[in-house]
């Protein structure tokens, strides 16, 4: 089988399923489990063939899909149907998976929006604070009210700084 993307570029089984759903133009509200399970398994097998790392979560999802598929294929219990008084509504075994996919998709979209903002923000340059230590009067300060996160924050800001070229100085050696 031919694939465009390697497994590493997916963020887990939900991401892979969304990719398959998108690629085969499947209705997310009415997932043909047999079909998608087949594609999913083919994908996993191809990856194993190539000896690529398959994260454990992918195998759990494979088992889940197979379970749903068999549940949908096997006949339902007759006893429940005989009970007229209580209308037992047979829950769609796909329901939970569908909800999970929709929820994940939501945040995948939100992450895309954040990526856009990340890129836009990176276009704005600032400068490091000026060294104002010369203006500090030599007297003892009360201890600053800071915590671990302030330290991490200060370091993160420092690491984000871009270094610009310094003015060039040319010396002529005699």
């Amino acid at each position, binding site marked *: 089988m031919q694939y465009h993307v390697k497994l590493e570029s997916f963020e887990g089984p939900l991401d892979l399923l969304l990719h398959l759903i998108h690629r085969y133009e499947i209705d997310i509200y009415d997932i043909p489990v047999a079909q998608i399970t087949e594609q999913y398994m083919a994908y996993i097998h191809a990856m194993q063939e190539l000896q690529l790392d398959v994260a454990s979560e992918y195998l759990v999802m494979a088992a889940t899909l197979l379970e749903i598929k068999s549940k949908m294929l096997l006949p339902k219990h007759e006893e429940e149907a005989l009970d007229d008084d209580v209308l037992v509504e047979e829950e769609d075994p796909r329901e939970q998976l569908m909800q999970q996919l929709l929820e994940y998709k939501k945040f995948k979209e*939100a992450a895309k929006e954040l990526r856009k903002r990340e890129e836009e923000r990176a276009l704005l340059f600032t400068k490091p604070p000026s060294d104002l230590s010369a203006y500090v009067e030599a007297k003892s300060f009360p201890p600053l009210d800071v915590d671990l996160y302030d330290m991490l924050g200060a370091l993160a800001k420092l690491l984000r700084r871009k270094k610009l*070229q310094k003015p060039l100085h040319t010396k002529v050696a005699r």
Partner: protein
Amino acid sequence: MEKKAIIEALLFASGEEGLSHKQIAAALEISEEEVSELIEQLKQAYEQEERGIMLVEMAGTLQLVTKKEYAPYLQKLVESPTTSSLSQAALETLAIIAYRQPITRAEIEEIRGVKSDKPLQTLLAKALIKEVGRAEGTGRPILYGTTKEFLDYFGLKTLDELPPLPEFNEEDEEKEADLFFEKLSEQLTVGE
């Protein structure tokens, strides 16, 4: 009348750390309302085309930054490689925390469908998230939330500025489709 100039000087010296309205008001010994007014005027002055910097409000502080249209020129001066952007895993995790905070690791993993220790570690080290307490219940798991650095990193004033979470539901999509076809038929009849 040189108050605007003083504010400009203060903001220049504070650089990427920025200053809050309150700090500026304290330094100039004026009211915060007056600061807001002066800031507005300064902002407008920077809007002019011949200015290379502008005044923005991010994460509760005012900062002087270069305008984005001049980024290509600044990039020519960049010597050390620009800091790498967040990985997809970290970004997804961060999006979940941003919208659902306070949230536990287990809840994040349930939405993503994969283990999320590594992206959480990355985000903590970059100070984009922090522990904001512990959930009641067995295990007392850690709750995560976003930080001020998060707002700065994405150029947001407050969390309220986050774009609304996309909502998908069948009805909406159907409605949208109906609307589309309605419009289409309208246009077709007009065309005739």
